[in-house]
């Protein structure tokens, strides 16, 4: 394959970074790696075209995000033959250290909400681009963000649900009232 050296550089540059992002979505390192691996395999097939993209990693991330759905475990079973070649790696793989509280809070969200949190809050994509990347209406992205933020606030804010059982999010974002906002902000110009 003529483009292989080029693809090798690309693979080396993006694999770890994308696995990190996908881990936040899947909550499981193995699933994250498999999603990224499958997406990169598809990228290799299209590399002569993809390499001309301004950000080919965005294409790979989109494919990996699509794969990282609730049905991904079923998909992985279909890939069993391909996955087998890395069985020896899995056996000595260490799980990543988890930022206290964060992964529990993320795992309590539906996968669709985790995706918008990662794309909007980690990668700083505007909601329109998140919508385009996920192929859903902008309104759906906003709703998922609102709900995810509500649930995360409930779990990540001290005394507001972090110690609750798994469905504490159902009680809403019991976030604390902050100092009073400025009142009477009119400023005639």
């Amino acid at each position, binding site marked *: 394959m003529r483009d292989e050296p080029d693809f090798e550089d690309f693979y080396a540059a993006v694999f770890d970074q994308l696995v990190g992002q996908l881990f936040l979505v899947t909550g499981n390192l193995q699933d994250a790696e498999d999603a990224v691996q499958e997406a990169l395999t598809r990228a290799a097939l299209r590399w002569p075209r993809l390499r001309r993209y301004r950000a080919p990693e965005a294409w790979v991330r989109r494919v990996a995000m699509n794969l990282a759905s609730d049905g991904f475990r079923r998909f992985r079973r279909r890939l069993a033959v391909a996955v087998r070649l890395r069985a020896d790696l899995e056996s000595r793989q260490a799980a990543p250290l988890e930022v206290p509280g964060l992964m529990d809070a993320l795992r309590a969200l539906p996968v669709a909400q985790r995706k918008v949190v990662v794309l909007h809050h980690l990668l700083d994509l505007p909601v329109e681009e998140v919508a385009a990347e996920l192929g859903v209406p902008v309104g759906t992205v906003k709703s998922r963000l609102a709900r995810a933020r509500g649930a995360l606030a409930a779990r990540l804010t001290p005394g507001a649900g972090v110690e609750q059982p798994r469905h504490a999010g159902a009680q809403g974002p019991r976030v604390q009232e902050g100092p009073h906002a400025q*009142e009477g902000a009119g400023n005639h110009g």
Partner: protein
Amino acid sequence: MPRRERATMADLRERLAAQAEEAARAARGPGVAATLRRARARRRRLLGGRVALSLLLVAGLAGLTSRLLDEREPASPPQPTAPLPRQIAPLWTARGAASEPLAPQDRTLRAVGDLVVATTGFGGPSGRTRAYDARTGAFRWLHRTGPNAFITAVGGGMVVVAPQYGPLVGLELATGRERWRFPLAEGQGPESGTVAGDTLYVGTSFPAEGNDDPPVVYALDVATGRQRWRTVLDPGTDLQWAGPVVDGGQVLVADTLSHEGSAPASHLHALDAATGRRRWRADLHAPTQGFFNDHPVLAGGLVYLPTASGMLLAVDARSGREVWRDDSGFPVLAGVRDGLVIALVDGRLVGFDAATGARRWQTGVGTGAGEQWAVLDGDTVLAAAGGALVAVDAASGAARWRAPVGPAVGQPVVAGDRVYVATRDRLVAVDRGSRSELWASSRLRPVTAPVVTAGRVVVATRDGTLLGFAP
């Protein structure tokens, strides 16, 4: 138990980045060589399949050709012959008045009479509702509403606000004085409401993870908050954002799935406006979750609405029986006029026969960055799409003009002989007749569609400022 550090939503990004970095360090892939081997093997299989597929395609080409529609060329962009628009400064600014909405824009900024009402605190610990004089920007009143405050409905001299999980609070519009509170259950959050006559109709959902409790629709006396009726809908669903449509003695509300597999399908429900009794429900053919902010549109005895599965549906307003559907893409409804339902569907404005769903005309208006909106303005359809404001004849679909204003934020608003549109970096006024840009604001970051009232055009920006412009 690990020590729980003080956490706020403000440091969410830092925590996500730290966690992603940690996972990236632990990542161990099979390596590029194995990836390329898999790709080569898959390519061989694909090539074999394509030979067979090519033969099938040749046979099918004749059939495809017959389905090609008489599609007009995209509305041609006029070359900018006019001088650059005048840049104007706001007449007033109010800082800290609004916050970036992650709920639909119409929940966070409303204009009523000579007031603009805005909420702050979305995604934050506190939420306020504030009212300003639209003409001068003078502060009028404030209400401490609670986390993720938003405006549920306005009408009957009242503004009804709520934190994300209730209660509903009725405020006197003129003074901000709290007149009533209507408590909701734990985890129950109101959606947008509609005031019709002296009644507030509002749906509520239980949106939190793992909660499949059914939505509840309430009818409340808007002056007192007293409940007139409540109706429980289907478990495993949440209501759409758009407020109920109240027409012909019916209240129409649409739902979507709470999460994947939580209910068999989503529905449009028709409730008796006087009693809340369910008259019918129509299957929306949407087995996945999807939210949109379009109201159903009632015309000529039919109800038209988009569905989360990307379908435009027409159902009988008296029975809920499906009359026709178009599943060619996600529709943004502009309205109904002269027997045509006009919608923006994947970059095309389409005029559907209102009775049959047949396409009478379609005109490409472009896709790309920015939100897509379509509004009916008399005999003209205005679409914000593809980074431009496009005007099309509602009867024929013929392109009238195109103004490359930039990607829209919120819907275009028509007032007098002008169209106002917020874009990602300015507010623009376009002359409806000559399509020229009359003025533009200096650089700012709008987060809502503009509202026009009391001789002012008001927009909220990302940094939480309200700006009032002369029209």
